[in-house]
């Protein structure tokens, strides 16, 4: 029986090859894309799930009610972890966690390793299996380190790693450490990845920092005892907080902060390990958002939906040609069940074949996909039994709906009626129209998303940031020399080169350079009896000039004034915050007794991500330490040569350090990597969606034209022109596109407005985005349908009438 079904199914497919090809290609492409996209999404969704005790491990974060509104963060002071463990019951293990590079030397090898500085509990809490060396308490000894297999390979090659002694630069000293254990390499979905783990006690100026609660610089992870409820624990920390942050809380009250709903000014919160990767503290509370992976899944689903709609529509339309078969089968004793099963098995057959092709396609394009979207997915995901089982169930469900609906329609037809070959189905058309509206709605939604996303990316790329990003390059000063010295040497080295205009340095990069790091340091100080908060930047001479920052008032740092190392330059926002009529009379309180005068005010510039509003900034000058990035302004000519010259100079000064230079415009581009990735993804999604919708539309136009051949013939005999017939045939489709435009644009508008809210500097969400998307859809639909209808309209009517 099944053989018979498949045979007739196959022959039906072969009879109309265009149709079959359109159907199979559409489904294959859609399933291929959907496979890739959902792999990427599931990859993104399964971060940090491999820790055995993960359900009890939390990251500690704080929230504070300030006069400017709530603020939140994860940075905590060094004595915090011990105090929390001893003073609040319920903690099983706790570890401090600081990510900072460690310049490691072994013999002649000198590498900057991504190190984590953690407490001994770290390896008890997290599941990083030790392959070689000490199994338990690996970091108990203060001078031992743990490295990954890859690091061992980098440092020691084939030599046994355990017991080797490496030197790690801490501050200005090289300290010896013994390799105690080697762990497996980091898994891809791990947000705590490291190349080397070092006991936390070794961090720079640890002893001083242990004495104060004011210096916050690292994260804390805590593992609760079994059965301890996180919410309850958070409540239990209230007295702990009011004890240790007494002074802060009083200051907040004095400055006029409003307590939160619980009547508290400062609170501790716990964030489940699984959520850490998806949390942002931007808005003053822990916001857990998995929006991007879900968005990607959504796009995958929409694409699949479009392909399925095609399938349903084509199947229903096609089935009118098989009415006689259905009728005959009924007279020969087929029941509804038989017919349903027959048509469903045909769909299943096509689906399985298409998904097979889809898997093939995705395997073919996975590498391109990975580079395009910077995803670390691999086809291995597809071989896990859960995924195989899940997708089987999914396919069965989809075919049940997609293949089942036409099958149900067909199996319900009356025998006599179907034998006559006539289908009285205004209802079927309504479903078909609704589905096509849905399809085009999705396409318009994705297209307007594409336009707006690219608009925003373009806007951010071209926005005047207030500094010169095209002619300035920056690179991290990560060598062994004192960085101030290094800058001086660099300046001397490049002095003779006419293309190098100036050299300077600061403790922070602009944008995100090749080292991938981006940070800001925030100071909270008391100014004339109220608390103020400012970002702090330490620079070298010539910083303002090199970056082309515009001075509004006062002067820049100048080598001729000896006192400038004890003065500051502020930006306009900071000036507003200080609230002085003449900002140059203001001062910056470094400590109770030490006040730095303000010598200049620079125009506000975007020193942080463009998505953020410009915050207050205070610029310090320091001529001894604190510089981490060099900035070099080059002439607009020969920029590649100048770049090479800088690299050579740096290699000469620090032969062992890698040169990670990049121009600031690249750095800025890097900060909206996410937006660019999203834009690319939505663009590809919308192109696919449009292509698939067009396939569907094309197939429908083929069918409708063939069904109306007689009508066209009669009309032409009665004197209709080619144009009027084309209009007649095209009109119906265009109506559908218009309806979908009116449904989709408000939804798109609402979604995109929500998204743009995340950006302080954003484009205007004008009507033209949607009109453009709608027009584009209309034109594409017109072209798709037009080809077929014009040729149908031009046919000799005698011929079309004869075929009836």
């Amino acid at each position, binding site marked *: 029986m099944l053989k018979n079904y498949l045979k007739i199914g196959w022959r039906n497919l072969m009879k109309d090859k265009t149709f079959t090809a359109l159907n199979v290609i559409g489904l294959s492409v859609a399933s291929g894309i959907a496979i890739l996209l959902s792999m990427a999404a599931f990859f993104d969704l399964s971060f940090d799930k491999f820790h055995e005790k993960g359900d009890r491990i939390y990251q500690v974060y704080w929230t504070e009610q300030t006069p400017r509104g709530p603020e939140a963060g994860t940075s905590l002071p060094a004595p915090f972890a011990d105090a929390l463990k001893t003073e609040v019951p319920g903690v099983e293990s706790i570890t401090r966690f600081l990510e900072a590079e460690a310049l490691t030397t072994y013999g002649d090898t000198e590498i900057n390793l991504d190190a984590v500085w953690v407490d001994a509990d770290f390896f008890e809490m997290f599941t990083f299996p030790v392959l070689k060396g000490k199994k338990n308490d690996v970091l108990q000894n203060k001078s031992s380190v743990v490295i990954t297999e890859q690091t061992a390979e980098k440092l020691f090659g084939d030599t046994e790693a355990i017991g080797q002694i490496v030197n790690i630069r801490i501050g200005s000293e090289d300290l010896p450490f013994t390799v105690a254990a080697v762990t497996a390499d980091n898994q891809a979905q791990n947000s705590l990845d490291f190349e080397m783990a070092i006991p936390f006690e070794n961090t720079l100026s640890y002893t001083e920092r242990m004495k104060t609660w004011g210096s916050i610089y690292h994260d804390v992870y805590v593992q609760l005892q079994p059965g301890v409820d996180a919410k309850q624990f958070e409540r239990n920390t209230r007295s702990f907080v009011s004890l240790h942050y007494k002074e802060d809380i009083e200051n907040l009250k004095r400055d006029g902060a409003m307590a939160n709903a619980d009547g508290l000014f400062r609170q501790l919160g716990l964030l489940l390990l699984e959520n850490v990767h998806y949390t942002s503290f931007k808005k003053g509370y822990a916001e857990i958002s998995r929006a991007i992976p879900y968005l990607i899944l959504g796009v995958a689903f929409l694409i699949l939906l479009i392909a399925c709609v095609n399938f349903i529509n084509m199947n229903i339309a096609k089935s009118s040609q098989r009415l006689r078969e259905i009728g*005959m089968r009924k007279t020969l004793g087929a029941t509804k069940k038989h017919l349903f099963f027959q048509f469903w098995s045909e769909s299943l057959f096509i689906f399985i074949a298409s998904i097979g092709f889809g898997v093939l396609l995705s395997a073919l394009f996975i590498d391109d996909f990975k580079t395009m979207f910077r995803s670390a997915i691999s086809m291995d995901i597809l071989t896990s039994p859960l995924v195989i089982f899940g997708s089987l169930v999914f396919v069965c469900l989809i075919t049940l709906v997609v293949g089942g609906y036409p099958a149900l329609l067909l199996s319900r037809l009356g025998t006599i009626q179907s034998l006559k070959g006539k289908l009285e189905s205004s209802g079927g058309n309504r479903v078909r129209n609704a589905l096509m509206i849905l399809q085009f709605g999705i396409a318009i939604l994705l297209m307007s998303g594409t336009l707006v996303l690219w608009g925003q990316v373009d806007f951010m790329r071209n926005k005047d940031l207030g500094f010169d990003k095209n002619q300035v390059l920056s690179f991290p000063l990560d060598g062994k020399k004192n960085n101030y010295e290094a800058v001086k040497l660099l300046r001397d080295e490049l002095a003779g080169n006419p293309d190098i205009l100036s050299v300077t340095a600061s403790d922070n990069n602009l944008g995100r350079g090749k080292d991938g790091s981006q940070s800001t340091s925030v100071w909270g100080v008391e100014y004339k009896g109220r608390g103020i908060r400012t970002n702090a930047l330490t620079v070298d001479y010539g910083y303002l000039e090199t970056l082309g920052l515009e001075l509004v008032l006062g002067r820049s740092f100048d080598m001729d004034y000896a006192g400038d190392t004890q003065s500051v330059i502020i930006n306009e926002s900071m000036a507003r915050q200080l609230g002085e009529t003449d900002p140059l009379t203001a001062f910056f309180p470094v400590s109770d007794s030490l006040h730095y005068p303000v010598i200049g005010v620079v125009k506000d510039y975007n020193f942080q991500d463009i998505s953020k509003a410009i915050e207050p900034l205070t610029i310090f000058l320091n001529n001894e330490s604190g510089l981490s990035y060099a900035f070099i302004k080059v002439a607009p000519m020969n920029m590649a040569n100048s770049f090479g010259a800088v690299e050579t100079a740096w290699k000469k000064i620090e032969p062992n350090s890698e040169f990670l230079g990049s121009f600031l415009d690249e750095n800025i581009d890097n900060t909206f990597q996410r937006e660019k990735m999203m834009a690319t993804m939505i663009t590809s999604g919308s192109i696919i969606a449009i292509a698939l919708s067009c396939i569907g539309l094309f197939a429908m136009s083929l069918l409708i034209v063939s069904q109306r051949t007689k009508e066209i013939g009669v009309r032409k005999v009665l004197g209709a022109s080619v144009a009027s017939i084309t209009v007649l045939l095209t009109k119906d489709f265009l109506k559908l596109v218009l309806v979908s435009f009116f449904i989709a644009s408000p939804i798109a508008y609402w979604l995109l407005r929500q998204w743009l809210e995340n950006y302080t500097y954003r484009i205007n969400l004008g009507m033209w985005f949607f009109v453009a998307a709608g027009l584009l859809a209309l034109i594409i639909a017109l072209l798709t349908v037009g080809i077929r209808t014009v040729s149908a309209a031009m046919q000799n009517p005698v011929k079309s009438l004869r075929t009836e």
Partner: protein
Amino acid sequence: MLLQLNGIFKWVQQGGQRVFLLKDINLEVEEGEFISIMGPSGSGKSTLLNVIGMLDDFDEGEYNFLDEPVHQLKEKHRANLYKQYIGFVFQAYHLIDELTVYENLEMPLLYKKLKGSDRKAMVADMLDRFGIVGKKDLFPTQLSGGQQQLVGVARALISKPKLILADEPTGNLNSKQSSEIMALFKELNDDGVTIIQATHSEQNAAYGKRIINLLDGRKV
């Protein structure tokens, strides 16, 4: 008695009025009869055949088939009944274009859930009997009209029905092909199969042992 129709009415509503397709039809058919139904277009010949074949419902009256009251049976029982006892032959043959001659013949047997070997034997038997063994792998479109109708008759016969209903079986055929088909019907009738045919042609009607004339849904 094979079947009995008592006061059968069938109508459709058209603009608030009943238009009768069948009006008070009474008919008794014994096994082994060969009946020709005659009448002009629209007189209700096909409708009557469809009602007898249980493909179509009627609105009033009683219909007994082999002592089973068809008007009281559920859809499923009715389907089983006609599947087992009735074979259909159509003017337009209604062979399935995508299946070969062999597969077309096999199809009714599939719905009767017969075993593969049995099906093979029965199809081979039928091909042999109608002399179309050489054409078994051809598709319907590769055959002439007469040959297609031959396959149509063979398909109707394959499940060994007691009754064959033929709706204008020769309507699409030329005179030579049509007399061949009619000869075949006569032969089948001689073997004991009951046949009811609807036809326009006096000549074909003459093959029947009894002729029923219909006009506007009424027996005359």
